[in-house]
């Protein structure tokens, strides 16, 4: 088995084009997924059953089904109701929906980590519930949820490969195309394997650095040991749910 460098040079640009589309898709999926996740987290934590019920149902359904079948279903359901969209857009929507479930769990842990008393104080000085969330909870939540959000983003990068099954020409699809033209699976898949690996390891690397920086800052805040432990546990549970 030998690496044919000619293929790497000739089809490298095609793979890189796929790489760019992967990045674009992931970017928009995050942009849509996080707000959706926050919305679901708030719904999930609501005391009103008509908010909580649907939120719980959606979370359970998405969490207990494979991403691939969600993608397929969305890809075929939308035209069924007369909505024709390019595969790339469907892909972004599917990724955003899928990841929002996990973002929701992360946000829930983040919101729960902000001491309850603060929300009550905010309500007591006349803020509405939404105002309390926006002005008091969210600013404190971001540094806490950043590491798990980045983790989830890594898994988003990996899941985006599945969009090749609905003809989105992202990185995996471009490797399949190169394989189809050259009949050389080795070169095609080695190229994208390395690109995915480098991309995700660099995300992981920056997360670890960020985590250290945030930990130092976090330790200066006045949180109790019990609070920290509870939060670490819930974030660990979220981390376990995805890969």
């Amino acid at each position, binding site marked *: *088995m030998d690496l044919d460098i000619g293929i790497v040079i000739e089809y490298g640009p095609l793979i890189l084009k796929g790489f760019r589309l992967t990045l674009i898709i992931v970017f928009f999926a995050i942009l849509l997924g996080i707000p959706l996740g926050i919305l679901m987290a708030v719904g999930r934590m609501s005391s009103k059953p008509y908010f909580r019920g649907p939120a719980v149902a959606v979370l*359970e*359904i998405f*969490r*207990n*089904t*494979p*991403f*691939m*079948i*969600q993608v*397929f*279903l969305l890809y*075929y*359901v939308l035209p*069924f109701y007369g909505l024709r969209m390019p595969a790339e857009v469907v892909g972004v929507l599917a990724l955003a929906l899928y990841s929002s479930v996990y973002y929701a769990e992360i946000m829930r842990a983040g919101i729960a980590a902000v001491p309850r008393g603060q929300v009550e104080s905010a309500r007591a000085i006349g803020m509405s519930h939404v105002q309390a969330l926006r002005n008091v909870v969210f600013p404190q939540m971001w540094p806490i949820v950043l590491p798990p959000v980045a983790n989830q983003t*890594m898994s988003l*990068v*990996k*899941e*985006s*490969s*599945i969009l*090749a*099954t609905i003809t989105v020409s992202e990185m*995996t699809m471009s*490797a399949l195309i190169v*394989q189809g033209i050259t009949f050389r*699976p*080795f070169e095609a*898949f*080695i190229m*994208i*394997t390395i690109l*995915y*690996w480098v*991309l*995700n*390891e660099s995300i*992981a690397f920056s997360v670890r650095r960020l985590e250290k920086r945030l930990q130092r800052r976090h330790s200066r805040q006045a949180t109790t040991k019990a609070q920290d432990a509870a939060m670490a546990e819930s974030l660990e549970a979220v981390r*376990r*749910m995805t*890969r």
Partner: protein
Amino acid sequence: MKFDFSYTIDAFPWLLDGALITIQVAFLSFGLSLILATVLTVVRSLEIKPINAVIAVYISFIRSTPVLIQIFLAYYVLPVVGIDLQAFTAGILAVTLNSAAFTTEILRGGLAAVPRGQFEAAHSMGLKPSTIWLKVVLPQAYIASIPPLVNEFTLVVKTTPLLAMITVVELMRRAQQIFSANYHPVEVLIGAFTIYFFICFVVSRASVVLEHRFAVRRA
């Protein structure tokens, strides 16, 4: 077009047939992955530097590349090296190697839950290293990691539809075959979707039962 439920019902027996393969693949891969992960955990605890470095690279590789690519590597690239596997075997191999990396990390957590003193106590009682692992440490490590292990199993189930890409006829592939014949993808996919949900939901609830069953032994 109108949603016609009769297509779902017609497809259902065929889908269940595919679901059997899905369950078979999931159990085989997860069982093998559990064995491999246990071996890796024991080997890693010996702290032989070069071997641990290899394991670290393996885990990093698995964790930062998509499963789909790993499946393609097993099916398309291994034959280049002279290992020509059937789709089913290649699929099981890929899913096993993928899951084992995550299971190893889970077992590391479980191992941390076993107090160090127990190693020392077992050692001073004159137990052989193999006995210490099999009778003292591993059972406790497994019990401590039941919830993440069950969760890992549902993740394996959710990985199996990707094997449809390399022509393994499991639930997803079966669904694709049916709707490419009757042109009713939505109805057929809803059927498959429901089966997947049912499997994963039941398995994730099993975690509670298992924990309860083994909770006594921990005391």
